[in-house]
């Protein structure tokens, strides 16, 4: 698809004054954006900046409230994803839309016009995957594939439509650094063919590496359009966040106390067919330490958290020791009474119930550990609303939780503010052991740095902190020790100062282990 002269300057897609209102809330307001043929265009912004809303309008999932979309100079309306595909827009979503029990080819067939034979699809998918360097076995079941391989299915599915524009929503958030490199090669190939890519991310480093131009969104408005290569990460971050973000001062405590949390040869079978089993996990966290567990999503992080928190206890009491006492077979309440605190990954419906007030959500996590303070009335168990509300207020002040009223429903808080409350709820107890899963997932930069600092401070004050995270930046900010989880196996813990991103990347892919390496290459059999 050679592009010459004037056509090269005419944008493939131009968006004028595009606005999307949800009620009175403007998720996108007056967005202007143009994408030229054959460029990789970055869409930058924090969570909640309006990136997803914008691309959903481009892909026909949402209809704009006002404004116009020009496709190759012609005004168009895109009422549905299939209309977008017909125009030549393909999209790879952040959360994959795949059926785990079906094969790769079957999943691809679901998005194609009916009447094309499965064998043809498989053959075509195979050909595309080879020519773009995306090795994929069309007959493999999705359930057996890694996250990176699943993403390839989505990309191949988009490529089968021969699109002129491909939209990728946060594609590297689920990849190891090595897998990400492979993806970038594919993107370069697409660009060389004259296709355009709209690349959504909040990772500045990779945007600077691969993108030709960038548009920055904040609070639903365009706050900057630039060539990312001419900017510094700091200047890009300023456009995204609106101000400089407080830097987390590294842990660096020299104090190394007793082992407060220890896991000895923890093995747990997967509870569902698509869960990961834990295999011989060993770890130690001392007082004053922050042990971070890195890993690509879906490698057993959730399962490890469940076992550590006691939501799903294990039969062997000695598999988990809290403050040097066996706790493996104890439930979450008993472990809280031993001095441990827990922050799960999912805010809505796990750490908190969205429809209940903040004070009720405080009781939720602390009704037994602070029974004396919060519950009265003997066996009837009347909640002392005044005491609970005072504590909720104290937590909100300490963690700078911004809320619309005195005691609002948890669901009405933004992700960052609710997460600050949930972390603060545990810190308020000064737990000796704190286990946190994805502490700043989907949280704005200001709240994230507040949360990270509070974790570091807790360790400094002599507690043992275990952080499970997919975010390498976060891990390097808070960790004193780092271990990597891959397919339910945990690597040794290394002092944070001795590890590089590349080494962690290798550990994430299970590459430190020859057997695993062999398995990886034979995966596409």
């Amino acid at each position, binding site marked *: 698809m050679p592009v010459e002269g004037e056509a090269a300057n005419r944008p493939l897609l131009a968006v004028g004054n595009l606005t999307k209102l949800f009620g009175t809330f403007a998720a996108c307001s007056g967005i202007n954006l143009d994408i030229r043929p054959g460029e990789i265009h970055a869409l930058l912004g924090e969570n909640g900046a309006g990136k997803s809303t914008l691309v959903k309008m481009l892909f026909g999932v949402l209809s704009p409230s006002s404004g116009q979309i020009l496709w190759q100079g012609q005004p168009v309306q895109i009422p549905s994803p299939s209309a977008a595909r017909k125009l030549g827009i393909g999209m790879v979503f952040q959360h994959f839309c795949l059926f785990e029990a079906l094969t790769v080819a079957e999943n691809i067939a679901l998005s194609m016009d009916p009447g094309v034979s499965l064998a043809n699809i498989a053959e075509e998918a195979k050909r595309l995957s080879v020519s773009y360097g995306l090795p994929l076995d069309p007959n493999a079941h999705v359930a057996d594939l890694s996250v990176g391989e699943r993403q390839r299915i989505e990309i191949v599915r988009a490529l089968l439509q021969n699109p002129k524009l491909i939209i990728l929503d946060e594609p590297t958030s689920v990849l190891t650094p090595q897998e990400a490199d492979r993806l970038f090669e594919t993107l370069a190939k697409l660009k060389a063919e004259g296709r355009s890519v709209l690349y959504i991310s909040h990772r500045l480093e990779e945007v600077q590496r691969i993108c030709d131009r960038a548009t920055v969104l904040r609070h639903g408005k365009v706050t900057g359009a630039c060539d990312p290569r001419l900017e510094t990460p700091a200047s890009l971050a300023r456009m995204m966040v609106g101000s400089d973000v407080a830097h987390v001062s590294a842990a660096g405590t020299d104090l190394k106390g007793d082992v407060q949390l220890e896991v000895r040869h923890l093995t747990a079978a997967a509870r569902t067919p698509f869960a990961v089993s834990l295999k011989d996990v060993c770890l130690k966290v001392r007082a004053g330490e922050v042990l971070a567990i890195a890993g690509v999503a879906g490698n057993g992080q959730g399962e490890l958290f469940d076992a550590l928190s006691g939501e799903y206890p294990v039969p062997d009491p000695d598999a988990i020791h809290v403050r040097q006492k066996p706790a493996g077979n104890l439930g979450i309440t008993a472990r809280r009474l031993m001095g441990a605190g827990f922050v799960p990954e999912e805010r809505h419906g796990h750490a908190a*119930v969205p429809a209940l007030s903040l004070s009720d959500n405080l009781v939720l996590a602390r009704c037994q550990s602070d029974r004396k303070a919060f519950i009265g009335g003997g066996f009837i168990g009347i909640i002392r609303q005044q005491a609970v509300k005072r504590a909720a207020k104290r937590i909100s002040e300490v963690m700078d939780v911004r809320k619309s009223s005195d005691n609002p429903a948890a669901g009405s808080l933004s992700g960052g503010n609710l997460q600050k409350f949930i972390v603060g709820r545990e810190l308020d107890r000064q737990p000796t052991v704190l286990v946190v899963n994805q502490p700043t997932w989907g949280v704005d930069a200001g709240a994230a740095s507040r949360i990270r600092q509070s974790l570091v401070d807790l360790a400094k004050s002599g507690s043992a902190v275990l952080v499970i995270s997919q975010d390498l930046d976060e891990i390097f900010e808070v960790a004193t020790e780092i271990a990597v989880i891959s397919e339910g196996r945990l690597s040794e813990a290394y002092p944070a100062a001795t590890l590089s991103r590349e080494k962690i990347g290798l550990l994430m892919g299970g590459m430190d282990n020859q057997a695993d390496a062999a398995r990886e290459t034979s995966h596409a059999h």
Partner: protein
Amino acid sequence: MRIELEKRPKISTLFSILSPFIALILTIIAGAIMFMLLGKNPLDALYSFFVEPLLEVWSLHELAIKAAPLILIAVGLSVCYRSNNWNIGAEGQFIMGAIAGSILPVVFYEWHSPLVLPLMLLMGMLGGALYAGIPAFLKAHLNTNEILTSLMLVYVAQLFLDWLVRGPWRNPDGMNFPETRTFAAEAILPELLSSGRTHWGFVFAILAAILVWFMMRYTLKGLEISVLGQSERAGRFAGFSSRKMIWFSMMLSGACAGLAGIAEVSGAIQQLRPVISPGYGFTAIIVAFLGRLNPLGIIAAGLVLALTYLGGEAAQLSIGVSEKVTRVFQGLLLFFVLSCDTLIHYKIRVIWSKLGGTAVDGGH
């Protein structure tokens, strides 16, 4: 033109109060249309259905008698439904409570003591609770769907009662009618007022409503019920056991239904017959939802649904339509209540213009 439902940013307090009233109005409108199609004057029909029963003292007593079991059962069901356990079998638990409570006056009819009545009530609650324990056990330990098991156990209870009153418990002096002995005086729930038949069952219902309201609003148990009902995962994180909650909520609602059963038999019928309930256990489901699963709302809703029973009887007498209109009204009401609840979470938007798919084909 098309109609869209748009999710509200947060739930509307206005509509969570208004929705039962809108549902009532829509029910009355639909009822009027139904009467019109039956060839009756809709205004006269609605008057005799909804207003006439409220004009006389004796019929107000009947209203309280019918409302009592509805409220008592619905209060128990509200705990179940709030904790995400779908007990549909209150009718069966009502019957089993009535049977268990009747053991003393029917089998040990020669035992006379002031203890008989309190023991009957306790055994009634126990009977209902144990019968609800069957679906609770099946759900907690075998992961069976409680909607199906509790519903099917209703038919078992109904046939068991039928067999009892025709067989072993039939009154030997009853000329072969399928009935048990009539209860002795000390086995009969006393009347509340001298002016009519209302018995202590109504007091039990109001008391249960207030106690459950207190539990839901002020106690940790109430929070546990809400948390487990809205998210089992969050409940597990809090250290609550969803398995124990299945037992607790099912047995509590079973006990309420069982108490309603024995109170009905001992207070209003005074013996066991093949049929002792005009579907109270099912109607109470409507009561629970019309009352927004709030015990105080349920008291009001119980009175409204009791009126549909009386109205059905009245309409049969005065305008000559089948008393099946009772069921129609109850069904309409549940239908409208559930659909009006949509308004709490969604806005209705009518879109007049096009936004069709034509432009795209042109651009290609």
